[in-house]
């Protein structure tokens, strides 16, 4: 019921979710049940690629929630994504056990290489899947809380906020590049073997990861819809459009921004955690400010402030990237730049703006108004009747 209500005025979102759900049914069948020789067989490579896109879509969704609705342009969303990824990577590293190059049952290979004799304290607990999953949301959430609290309290907004988020992700990149940090330095974490006891490269594991990513994306989408359609969502939009007016309406703007920023960082962390087992590696390069900017381009391309546009954008741009980088890798960055310029100039509402013909949406809006008016007139009638009742009762 709730889900139906949330998707009632969101046809684009309903279509996108339906497509994802359909893919989650069809693709496992085409991969596992259809023989490799058949033309309908979907290779495991494609499954992994699509799973990766689903993670990107979740990340884009988290950006659209804060940028499209609250006007917070974070150019460091990749930092939360990567931290979530590292938390998952640490769990996967602990699952390798004695099967590493050096055969040390206690320490990951890179620590043996650095001549460390014991596990640093911050690696403790990562043997447990549950603990690692908790860290996937706690670490990005905590960083966003502290960072956001300081920034929003000091009323850092607009381009200044964007710049310091860039600095944040850059600083993390430099820190994680250092071997002394104990996260594998330049090489990052890789060479994973198992996840929850299943071999990580097996077809069934890949399908399971793909399904997980799809399921999380759909759940996250519905959660975001719930947020933006609630009273909270309208307050957040008001903060985007007229921050000081909202403050004079009696709202503590900082708390609202902080809450939505933390929630978005957690979504990004989950996206990173789902991404790492599918690509098989996490390294500090993911913190690169360029990545974070690219992620914002996905959202702008798809159409900000619509939620489903972010998903469309993440898929389109990344599919384009896959195509481009396979036949002419050097032109990809030019294509990306051109795309951003074209979208900004020609499609300010992004790709999904092409399909939202104003005429249709207006009539939908009007019919909604008529419905509400009808409902209200009935409500008024009942109110009048009840006051009449009271009056007659008083008269008696």
């Amino acid at each position: 019921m709730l889900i139906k209500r949330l998707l009632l005025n969101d046809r684009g979102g309903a279509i996108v979710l339906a497509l994802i759900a359909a893919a989650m049914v069809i693709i496992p069948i085409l991969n596992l049940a259809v023989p490799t020789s058949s033309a309908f067989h979907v290779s495991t490579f494609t499954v992994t690629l699509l799973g990766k896109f689903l993670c990107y879509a979740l990340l884009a969704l988290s950006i659209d929630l804060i940028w499209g609705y609250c006007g917070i342009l974070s150019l460091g969303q990749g930092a939360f994504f990567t931290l979530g990824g590292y938390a998952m990577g640490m769990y996967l590293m602990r699952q390798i056990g004695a099967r590493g190059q050096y055969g040390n049952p206690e320490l990951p290979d890179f620590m043996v290489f650095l001549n460390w004799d014991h596990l640093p304290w911050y690696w403790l607990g990562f043997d447990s899947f549950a603990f690692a999953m908790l860290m996937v949301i706690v670490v990005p959430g905590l960083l966003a809380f502290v960072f956001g609290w300081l920034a929003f309290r000091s009323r850092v907004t607009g381009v200044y906020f964007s710049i310091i988020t860039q600095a944040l992700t850059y600083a993390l990149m430099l820190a994680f590049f250092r071997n002394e940090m104990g996260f594998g330095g330049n090489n990052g974490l890789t060479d994973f073997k198992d996840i929850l006891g299943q071999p990580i490269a097996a077809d069934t594991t890949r399908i399971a990861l793909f399904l997980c990513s799809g399921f999380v994306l759909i759940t996250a989408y519905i959660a975001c819809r719930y947020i933006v359609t609630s009273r909270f969502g309208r307050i957040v939009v008001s903060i985007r459009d007229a921050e000081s007016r909202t403050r004079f309406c009696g709202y503590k703007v900082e708390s609202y921004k902080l809450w939505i920023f933390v929630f978005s960082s957690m979504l990004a962390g989950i996206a990173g955690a789902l991404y790492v087992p599918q690509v098989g590696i996490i390294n500090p390069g993911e913190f690169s400010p360029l990545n974070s900017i690219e992620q914002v381009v996905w959202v702008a391309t798809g159409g900000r402030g619509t939620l489903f546009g972010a998903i469309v954008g993440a898929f389109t741009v990344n599919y384009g990237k896959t195509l481009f980088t396979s036949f002419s890798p050097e032109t990809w960055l030019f294509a990306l730049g051109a795309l951003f310029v074209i979208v900004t100039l020609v499609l300010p509402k992004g790709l999904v703006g092409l399909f939202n013909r104003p005429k249709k949406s207006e009539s939908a809006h009007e019919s909604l108004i008529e419905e509400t008016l009808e409902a209200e007139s009935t409500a008024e009638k009942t109110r009048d009747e009840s006051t009449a009742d009271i009056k007659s009762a008083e008269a008696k």
Partner: protein
Amino acid sequence: MNILAQAKQALPVKDPDFSKVLNGFGSEVDNFGAPVDTSKRTILYVEGITVSFDGFRALNNLNLYVDEGELRCIIGPNGAGKTTMMDVITGKTKPDAGTVYFGQQINLLELSEHQIARGGIGRKFQKPTIFEALTVYENLELATASNKAVWWTLTKALNGAQKFRIDEVLIQIGLKELRHKNAGALSHGQKQWLEIGMLLMQSPRVLLVDEPVAGMTGEETEKTAELLLSLAGKHSVIVVEHDMKFVRSIARKVTVLHQGSVLTEGTMDQVQNDPKVIEVYLGE
């Protein structure tokens, strides 16, 4: 024994700001903690306020007292400090010296903007600022006096009484038929009324209204005058305005500001015949 309560007591909260952030997530019902004490009839005491921007004194030892239910007009040439005065009362600007009391006991200078707004001082900006992406109804819904903590707004809709109040205000400001129209599509005058309506939704004790009729047609101006007059009595209304004809049509008591302090106070006729006022407005 209530262990939780004990633990709460044992836990010292060092940074008051931080505890406020945490409270913002819960069900904080913000008020001044005490009722506004207006036993001496005066609701707003502005005393000895001085504000300097880079050496320029926007307000210079300003004194202003507003009675409960009064309609006060404030006039003055450009740069007299009218908007700065509103900034000080609503917590946007902190003065260098002076005190601002709401009733006998509440010191407004210690509070932040959202606390002052929740506690009963509403403000309308010079340029109409409404939320253009939302409908008229949603604008009022947002301004409704209710629990404004994050968790509350995420999970709870408005109750029947609050919705009823929105309907009342929609009639009062004459926008009932346009309730589902996007606020961005309203005319200039309608936007001004909507903003006044948003103030009313906060059930304020004091309304600060900055240039309500700037850019309005004659008919709209008349309607606005009626609206403001109907509000006086129930609320204290402070109107800052340039339009003398408009001020004359609503004013009971007028305060003239000049160079950051009060030049004179009185009825419109007294003020207009005051030689000091004539000098300021017409030059020597």
